[in-house]
């Protein structure tokens, strides 16, 4: 468990973080999201003391990081940077094994561990171990960066905008890899990004940071359906995301208000028979579609509106294709 208690960071005269309090649970894939300059990266770096709070306290499992042995803390924390940040003078194997070397592992044990992890990230050890970073693509470098972070089998992995410089395809593949690894390992991931789609895709829980302050904390669903303030609403204001939610369907004017349907026979029958499934405004149209697939005639109720399967077709038909 990682706890931030009233953490403030002041640069010169400006506050980068203001009295921020936050808890990250064990085994979570926790995403810190916000525009650039929001303070999210500073927050991440405080965990392994690459940044030190001006005031306040950061603790891991109840132990203040300021009191921990620095090298030991860092050797047992995975860290993935933008662009991989591999050392250009070392081979892939040397790069990946750097923490293990610092921890004093033998060469053969190191080699075994790296080979095993290379396979896990879908890179052929035979082909890649002896290469230099200059001979790797962006996606490959970042996979090695991930191997390096995983090498010492840390309980905690910190990732600082690791995929921001990648092409969309590599980005997607690596996001899948992270989700996959997170599912396999009992490791806490703290992931920083400015890309809200990436945040939504990856996060168990996410924290929206802006101007050094925590704007909202919760699951993607919670945040999207109920933005805490204008900033959060605007930050996640994206057609393709908003369109996924039932509340948007209602806002589009589809369906009929319950009050009105009382004169409609079919609807009245339905209500009377009680055969209506209630859905939350924050539910997605995908779960609605799944329901309709099972029960082709199912009517659903979102707040005060009744929606028929035909409304789903109508909604999808009017939606523009996402760019």
């Amino acid at each position, binding site marked *: 468990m990682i706890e931030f208690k009233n953490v403030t960071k002041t640069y010169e005269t400006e506050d980068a973080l203001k009295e921020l309090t936050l808890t990250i649970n064990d085994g979570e894939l926790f995403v810190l999201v916000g525009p650039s300059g929001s303070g999210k990266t500073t927050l991440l770096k405080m965990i*392994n003391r*690459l940044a030190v709070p001006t005031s306040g306290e950061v603790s891991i499992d109840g132990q203040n990081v300021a009191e921990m042995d*620095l*090298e*030991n*803390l*860092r*050797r*047992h*924390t995975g*860290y993935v*940077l*933008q*662009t991989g*940040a*591999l*050392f*250009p*003078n*070392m081979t892939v194997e040397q790069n990946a094994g*750097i*923490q293990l*070397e*610092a921890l004093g592992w033998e060469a053969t044990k190191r080699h075994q561990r790296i080979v095993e992890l290379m396979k896990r990230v879908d890179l052929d050890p035979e082909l890649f171990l002896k290469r230099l970073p200059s001979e790797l693509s962006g996606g490959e470098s970042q996979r090695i960066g991930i191997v*390096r972070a995983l090498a010492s089998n840390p309980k905690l992995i*910190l990732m600082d905008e690791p995929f921001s410089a990648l092409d969309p395809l590599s980005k997607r593949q690596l996001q899948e890899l992270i989700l996959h690894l997170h599912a396999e390992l009992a490791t806490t991931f703290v992931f920083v990004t400015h890309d809200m789609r990436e945040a939504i895709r990856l996060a168990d829980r996410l924290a929206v940071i802006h101007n050094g302050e925590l704007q909202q904390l919760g699951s993607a669903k919670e945040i999207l359906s109920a933005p805490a303030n204008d900033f959060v609403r605007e930050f996640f204001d994206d057609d393709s995301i908003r369109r996924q939610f039932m509340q948007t369907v209602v806002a589009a004017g589809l369906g009929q208000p319950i009050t009105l349907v009382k004169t409609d026979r079919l609807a009245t029958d339905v209500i009377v028979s009680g055969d209506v499934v209630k859905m939350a405004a924050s539910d997605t149209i995908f779960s609605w579609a799944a329901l309709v697939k099972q029960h082709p005639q199912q009517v659903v109720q979102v707040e005060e509106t009744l929606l028929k399967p035909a409304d789903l077709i109508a909604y999808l038909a009017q939606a523009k294709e996402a760019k």
Partner: protein
Amino acid sequence: MFDSLNTYIAENGNEILLSLWQHIEISAIAALITIIIAIPLAVVLLNHRRGGEFVLQVASVIQTIPSLAILGLLIPFVGIGTVPAIIALVLYAIMPIFSNTYSGLTNIDPVLMEAADAMGVSKRYKLFRIQFPLAMPMILSGIRIGVVMIIGTATLAALIGGGGLGTYILLGIQSNNNNALLIGAVLAAVLALVASWIIKALSGVSIKKIGIGVLVLAILGGAAYGINAALKPKTETIIVAGKMGGEPEILINMYKDLIEADNPNLNVEVKRNFGGTTFLFKALQSDQVQIYPEFTGTVLQSLVKTDQGVSHNPETAYQTAKTALSKQFKMTYLEPMKYQNGYAMAVSKETAEKYNLKTVADLAAHPELVAGFDADFYQQNDGYPGLKEAYGLNFETVRTMEPSLRYEALADGKLDVTDAYTTDPQVKKYDLVLLEDTKSFFPPYQGAPVMMKSFAKKHPGVSKSLNKLAGKITTKQMQEMNYKVTVEHEKAATVAREFLVEQGLLKK
């Protein structure tokens, strides 16, 4: 031209190689010391930006001081010879090596430095496995610049008795010997190119191998040096130096032969082209040099303080000089040789006939003549300023120039009047007319060895050997020997020995 170059190389091959080796030795030691100072300094100051900037500023300031000035500034502290030469070279080369190392280490991509910190590697690991390898291209190019600079500047070491290829460059300039000049300059340039190429080639080699290589070289060098030192006979070495030019070189070679013939336990090291009067005199005082030949006239004019005017009687002049040196500087001035190498005014035969010039006084009527003087002569009281007053000379155009060039300029008609030394071989070569000094303005210039009294007392044999030259060597003999060395490019050592044997002063 190539023929004469070939002959010169064939005759002086061993000496040239020795100079080349000396040059390499001085440069290598200087480079090694610079690296040992500059790189760790850059590492230490890595986390003290202000300190780093400060050192950078100081190093750049040092670099703006002319190298000759640095050499001059160092003499009072460390004397002359190889040591100050190396110190000056080190001071010079620190700037490029330090600044490249420093900026190489500080300009590494901050993301990589963050990655290294985040991995929790030790400081040592970070420095040697990450920072140094990444900064290596910058560091090596700094070393390359530094080494090339050292090799180039090391030619100046010859000026303060450090030896090296500069000896040939100096010799070439002084004696107008293009062969020597060419050899010195070309070899120095080639050496710089080769060194630069080797260092460039090293950039492809891993640091481990470079480290091992340097270590092996250091051990081999140390061992060779140790063995060399151990094998050297335990005789005392005394240094005999001479001013620039052929004549002093002939004289000091005679000193060497005479001293070594009579004193088997003494080893005489000859330092030719050792610099100007003041420089040599200071070197003698600080015991960097034990003996050098000096003229009575120069002693009286420039070195000692006398209340009376300079006597024009050679014997009186010598006695005055001897007493003054003894009283004021605790020096011993041995008996002078016979010949006089004084100043004289020289004109070409045609000019002399055209204007009917016979004495210096005749020049006063012809201010339109173009005069060209050696820089010393132009400034010293016993030179042009005094002469001008004594004879009422009033040349409209006076140039200062290298002594070696003025005769040729005179022969070519670019100059009408110049100062000359009576023993200069060119007087004979160009058939010049020396104008009579009717007012006896020029003091007598007789050469004799000068040394510290303490040295003379400790080595009575040396004085005895050198006194064999007292009253020997006529002006004509000296002129002839100078002709052989300066014009015919014979070796001074050979000419000196031949003369001593011929005169029965030395057994074959």
